[in-house]
């Protein structure tokens, strides 16, 4: 079996199926992506997609309230789900002889959820989600910064919020206003087989697995899906002139965030952005790390990243000062300027060939390493099927990265990483 073999099918109800056999261990990973996320919410009702994800673990017609995890854990399986701007995923890795258990559970909550939803479960999970927000955002050092940064970056020219402007977990006041009816409506609208990709990766027999998938899923009816949100093109998104704010927080080390908006996941610019992020901050020899952390010692840490989002993508540089003395805001601004000078240097001259080569090797090794994890493989296949319409493209990821050349990066930086398109947040120790 070649390492990168896969099969794809589409069931009569529109469910797309990806099968990737890998028999290293007696394990099977089941991964299902629904093409819905926080971007499909409305202002004032944020957090619904994620709250809904929690409700999907609260039982369905044939599965008791805690039955999902109980069934999976009692056979040694590992399960979870996550919500993102563009998608919600659910996944379990099981001993391969229990694969059918996963199909039973996933099909039951897709086909037969509503009858098991109750107000009591809803209130319980709302409370869990509010605590999740407290833990991950409100009681987290720098927790508010990313939210504010996204708000600044994703204001549209007409004053509307772009759907990436609000946090996936939602605002607390919106969570407080969430209702069970809202959750039901969300399910009816988006949780349809024709809005999903089901991937299996691991030890199984493809024809047999496909038969089983048909048995469990094919009688679940499709639905008519709303149109994708209408949004501006990348050139129209983002501030005109730097949009920048200084926040105070209970922190010790000041930090600066800079963000820009690029073309979304799968585009040439996105891969150029991923290479640039690696060149800027992966490893001690990377531009920002070497200069700011190692040589000048003004940064404690620095990280450049690009988010894998579909409509467009946030490219961000986060740099934390090594000290708040003598002047916290002053230190943060020195660091912020130093980051911008490096961005300007890339805009003027691009990276060197040796930087590119090093970044390629880092990314290739990292990709090869990550292929060891079955659940991650399955997730990548679902991602490529959902965002790029072709799961095979998941295997091309390393090639796309390696093909990026220096001029492509320079030209991307010149077009997209200008001061006039930057959103920025600086966090300083509060009173």
């Amino acid at each position, binding site marked *: 079996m070649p390492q990168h073999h896969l099969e794809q099918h589409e069931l009569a109800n529109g469910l797309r199926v990806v099968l990737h056999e890998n028999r290293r261990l007696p394990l099977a990973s089941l991964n299902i992506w629904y093409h819905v996320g926080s971007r499909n919410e409305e202002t004032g009702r944020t957090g619904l997609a994620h709250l809904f994800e929690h409700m999907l673990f609260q039982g369905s017609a044939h599965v008791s309230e805690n039955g999902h*995890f109980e069934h999976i854990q009692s056979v040694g399986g590992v399960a979870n789900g996550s919500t993102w701007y563009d998608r919600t995923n659910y996944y379990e890795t099981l001993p391969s002889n229990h694969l059918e258990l996963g199909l039973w559970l996933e099909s039951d909550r897709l086909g037969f959820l509503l009858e098991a939803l109750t107000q009591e479960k809803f209130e319980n999970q709302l409370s869990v989600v509010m605590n999740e927000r407290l833990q991950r955002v409100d009681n987290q050092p720098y927790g508010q910064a990313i939210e504010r940064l996204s708000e600044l970056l994703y204001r549209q020219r007409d004053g509307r919020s772009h759907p990436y402007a609000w946090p996936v977990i939602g605002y607390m006041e919106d969570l407080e206003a969430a209702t069970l009816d809202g959750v039901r409506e969300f399910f009816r609208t988006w949780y349809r087989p024709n809005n999903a990709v089901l991937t299996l990766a691991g*030890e199984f027999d493809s024809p047999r697995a496909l038969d089983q998938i048909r048995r469990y899923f094919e009688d679940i009816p499709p639905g008519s899906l709303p149109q994708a949100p209408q949004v501006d093109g990348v050139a129209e998104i983002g501030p005109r002139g730097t949009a920048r704010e200084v926040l105070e927080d209970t922190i010790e080390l000041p930090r600066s965030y800079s963000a820009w908006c690029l073309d979304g996941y799968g585009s040439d610019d996105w891969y150029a952005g991923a290479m640039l992020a690696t060149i800027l901050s992966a490893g*001690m020899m990377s531009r920002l790390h070497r200069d700011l952390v190692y040589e000048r010692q003004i940064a404690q840490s620095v990280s450049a990243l690009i988010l894998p989002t579909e409509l467009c993508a946030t490219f961000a540089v986060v740099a934390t000062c090594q000290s708040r003395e003598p002047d916290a805001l002053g230190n943060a601004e020195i660091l912020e300027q130093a980051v911008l000078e490096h961005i300007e240097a890339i805009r003027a001259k691009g990276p060197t060939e040796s930087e590119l080569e090093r970044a390629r090797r880092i990314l290739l090794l990292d990709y090869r390493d990550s292929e060891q994890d079955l659940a991650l493989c399955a997730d990548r296949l679902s991602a490529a099927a959902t965002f790029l319409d072709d799961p095979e493209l998941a295997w091309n990821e390393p090639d796309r990265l390696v093909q990026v050349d220096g001029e492509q990066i320079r030209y991307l930086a010149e077009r997209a990483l200008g001061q006039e398109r930057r959103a920025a947040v600086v966090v300083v120790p509060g009173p």
Partner: protein
Amino acid sequence: MKDATAPALDRSQPPAAAPSRPCAFPRFEHERLESGVSLWTLDVPDRNLVTVTLLVPGGSELDPPHLAGLASFTAGLRGKGTTHRTALEFAAAAEDLGTAVSASCSWDIAGVGATMRSEDVTAGLELVAEAALEPVFESEEIERARRRRLAEIERRRSDPASLAGAAFARAVYDETPYGNPTIGDRESTQAITRSDIAAFHDRALAARSCHLIAVGDLGPDRLRRAIEDRIERPLKSHAREFEDEPARLEPNQPEKPTRQVVILDRPGAAQTELRIGHVGVPRRHPDRIPIQVANSILGGKFMSRLNLNLRERHGYTYGVSSRFSSRRGPGPFVVGTAVANEVAGAACREIVAELERLCSEPPSEAELDDARNYLVGVFPYTMQTIQNLSSRLKALATFDLDHDEYERWPERIRATTREEVREVCRRHLFPDRLTITAVGPASELESQLEDL
């Protein structure tokens, strides 16, 4: 294309399992090299990757009381300048292989490791060995590291989870080594000198206490030649055992069982971090297996009693878990969670009640079955990567476990009985001796926690 002959699908019951394929821990080799170094190898031929780790003695348990952080400070400098390369030259050599050579330091042992393409194993091993065995501890690199460590210590002062962990450790272990953070504190970090570091490292160069662990696509003899050049040659003159012993790791116990409540005030904090527990057992304790089963039931998996109670029943938290740490000495048993401020007292009471319940009555047969099946069933999942396998070998080396530990582990888990679970809970869980640490707004917490 539905099979017309198939019976109608009955969704009311979970489907039966297919026959299972056994999955044992893969075979590995262990031998003592001429220098005294232990060599552990596990061949995983289909990855085109190798992960190599050289473990050297000198974990944070050995930090002298006034020099807390010495072990991890020393470890962190391995690779930051060697007899052959400056820190930057060293980093460039690693990154040219696409990798990073990273130094580690746990309570029990230190090490240097890297993952690389199998064709790069000679170059990778050279870097790992050079970092571990030939650091030069130049003062410029020491000062650079010192600044970063001081900044990290500052950062933790406003991180609720770090604060809670440190306050709990100090309350339970007092002045004994486990009572200090492995990074040390501001004073100790400023006090550590180059000669402290160099002396600590020199003592750790004891070949008979070093372990080289290589897992992955090892190839016929590439590795062997590299070992001869890079490990054996520099270590031949150090063929001795490591002899340092930590200060006493077991803290003094109060004569009468008593609970203590420690509140660390963070005015205005949005949530309260809780750490609740007491001194646990060493990794090599003979009760370790039933303890693992008991902890799985209590708080070791998502469907544990604690998570079902605090999260799924009461909605107090996003999650709660418990663990017995694996350390050479008696590391902590600790329950950790973050809860809304107004339910901190109620959450503590539920945690205490769950501990008492587990001590007073054995789990049901079904609950025990679930725990045993989970632990045994999840084993292959935890062996997917060469790094997973390498960690398992590191544990064998670090704690001097029997080499058939993983081979026998599933049957030992399966053999654990309800009575054994209750018995180990009685022996190792002490609801009346808990240290309850809360990090949050004291004004809201004091009244809630006062009669615990």
